[in-house]
């Protein structure tokens, strides 16, 4: 029983961080229909920025989120204006190519700035745990999970309880009608892209504390994040959170009760199985045109 509880808690903590990283990816797709292959690279960029703040100025890496997120948000805004905006209405394949190229550029820039050696952020609590009964909960993971929940709640409030959120949802649902009622869809898209990248920034600060990283680590992240948002339903924030938690649980449960060798494969098999039954993902919406096409 203790082992099961331990495994479940570790899975949920892992899933919480995945959820934060995936939220921006699904948000960007939901509004812009852009699959941002560079999302993992922005996560790693944020990890490097966090490392720089911690190493050069001694700022606690998790508290540094209040600095890291705006920095990465700004990078996202500029990236959108310079690179993504001209292709916003282009076929999806074009934006996939563009963001893939962007990921390679970011990897190169990070390699030049911080080198290709492995980097680790180790605050004083990095190797400590809370122990309750026979269960250990790594402090960094607990703090990271709580921050992820906080940021996700904030994001949810903005999307559902603010004028900006209504504008974003309107632009996502029907851009033409949104324009008619005075919403500047292009500006909303820029803001959404930056918010999505900002969320990746917050996730990057946390993952930088949890795992060592190199500029090339983004390949591992984008594979997981894409699977999570597809599982949850492309464009659905709630779906991304649910998909992330399931993904984290699937990884830890497989590792504990089957074999660590299958821990990264089984979650993808689950994604595959779910898509066979619900092609739109767990909480994805089946649009009218989907039905017509089918």
């Amino acid at each position, binding site marked *: 029983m203790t082992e099961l509880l331990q495994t479940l808690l570790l899975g949920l903590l892992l899933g919480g961080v995945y959820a934060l990283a995936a939220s921006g990816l699904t948000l960007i797709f939901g509004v812009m229909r852009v699959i941002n292959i560079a999302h993992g690279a922005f996560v790693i960029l944020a990890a490097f920025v966090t490392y720089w703040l911690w190493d050069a100025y001694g700022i606690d890496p998790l508290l540094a989120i209040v600095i890291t997120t705006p920095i990465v948000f700004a990078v996202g805004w500029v990236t959108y204006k310079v690179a993504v905006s001209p292709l916003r209405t282009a076929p999806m394949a074009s934006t996939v190519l563009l963001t893939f190229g962007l990921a390679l550029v970011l990897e190169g820039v990070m390699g030049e700035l911080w080198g290709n050696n492995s980097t680790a952020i180790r605050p004083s609590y990095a190797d400590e745990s809370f122990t309750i009964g026979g269960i250990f909960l790594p402090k960094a993971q607990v703090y990271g999970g709580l921050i992820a929940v906080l940021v996700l709640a904030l994001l949810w409030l903005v999307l559902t309880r603010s004028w900006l959120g209504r504008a974003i949802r309107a632009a996502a649902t029907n851009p033409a009608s949104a324009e008619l009622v005075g919403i500047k869809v292009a500006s909303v898209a820029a803001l959404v892209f930056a918010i999505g990248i900002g969320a990746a920034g917050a996730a990057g600060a946390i993952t930088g504390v*949890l795992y060592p990283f190199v500029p090339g680590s983004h390949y591992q992240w984008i594979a997981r994040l894409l699977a999570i948002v597809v599982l949850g339903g492309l464009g659905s924030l709630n779906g991304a959170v649910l998909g992330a938690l399931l993904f984290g649980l699937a990884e830890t449960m497989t590792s504990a009760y089957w074999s660590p060798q299958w821990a990264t494969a089984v979650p993808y098999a689950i994604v595959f199985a779910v898509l066979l039954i619900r092609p739109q993902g767990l909480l994805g919406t089946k649009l009218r045109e989907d039905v017509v096409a089918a």
Partner: protein
Amino acid sequence: MSHVSLRRGFTAAALTGVLALSLAACGDDSDGGGDSDGSIVIGTSLPLTGEFSQPGKAAQQGYEVWQKMVNDDGGLIGREVELVVKDDASNQNTIVADYNALIGQDKVDLLLGTFSSLLNLPASAVAEKAQMLYVEPAGGSPDMFTRGFEYLFFTQQATSDKQGKVFAEWVAALPEDERPETAAYPTLDDPFAAPNVAGIQEILEAAGIETVYEETYAIDTKNFDTIVSAMKSADPDLVVHGAQFEDGIGLTRSMLKADFTPDMFYETNAPSFGSQYSDGIGVENTEGVVYAVSHSPDAATPGNAEFVAAYEDMFGEGEVPEDAADAFAAGQVLQAAVEAVGDIDDQKALADWLHDNEVETILGPLSWDETGAPTGDFLIGQWQNGAPEIVLPEDAATAEIEIGWHPGGAD
């Protein structure tokens, strides 16, 4: 967008993405060119980007140091050495394209190998098919040497299944009251790490040390807490971890978080990365960690001091990466064969010479069996007082081996 067109969009995107990956990764970062002006052109493809970029960059440095030293010394059989270095982006498909291009388009005179068994497996097959000598600095998986290749040579002291042999035999020979009774063997699913651990496990089990945990984990595993939780429940005296680098840091940190500190801790690869390792797990937690290593900057091997000085001159003072030293040694082996044979046209003659002879390198003397596998023993290192030391074999040791892993015990 309709469901069907969305799906088509995805397919097109995936195909174009793969195409872009291949094209981007095939990018050449040097000026290439065949032999024309009397120089000898040597081609290689290294993982300069992607997951193996860390050792890939170090290997490039090692090759460049060797090239400079050879050219400063009058060249290879009197001809200047040029290097053509491609970036395989840590990708098995790209590296096949790269070596085909080096042979077919760039028409290089000689080849040097890439980094990791994962990449050397397909790359060496391309070289063998073209009947070109393939001297590789890091590809020690036993799988490399079961294919009957004639042109393949690995320029470290031993294949990965024998790298921990000296350590395992030392443990097996410990007095009973000091010898661990149980051991755990977590390992990365990797052609280098897994055989390394299997070789140690075989010796320790034969010595009566019970295996209480044995699991292989996938290459993209990021979270090790569940593995460590299971290992902690098994309560082994010794952990033998088959790792590359990031997973080595990740698993060790998870062990620290879980307050799981077995009496002895052996880890492949990661601890040989010097300050990157101590920064990764905390220098205070390194005390007593044992590992196998191919090179020591302090070794009295012929040319080692000159190599270290040249490396520091070219890339700044600091630690000399083991991977750079291995690449340099690969250059030395290639150089020895070319100088002994006297020309570069007959690649079979170069391979035959290496099969029949021993070569002095900065890693020590290297010789090979008929498969191209080296026949020596690795050095065993141990972190002591925040610094790496060579502890076995005794004739190469810079310090005496200490029993026990003591996290928090080093300054």
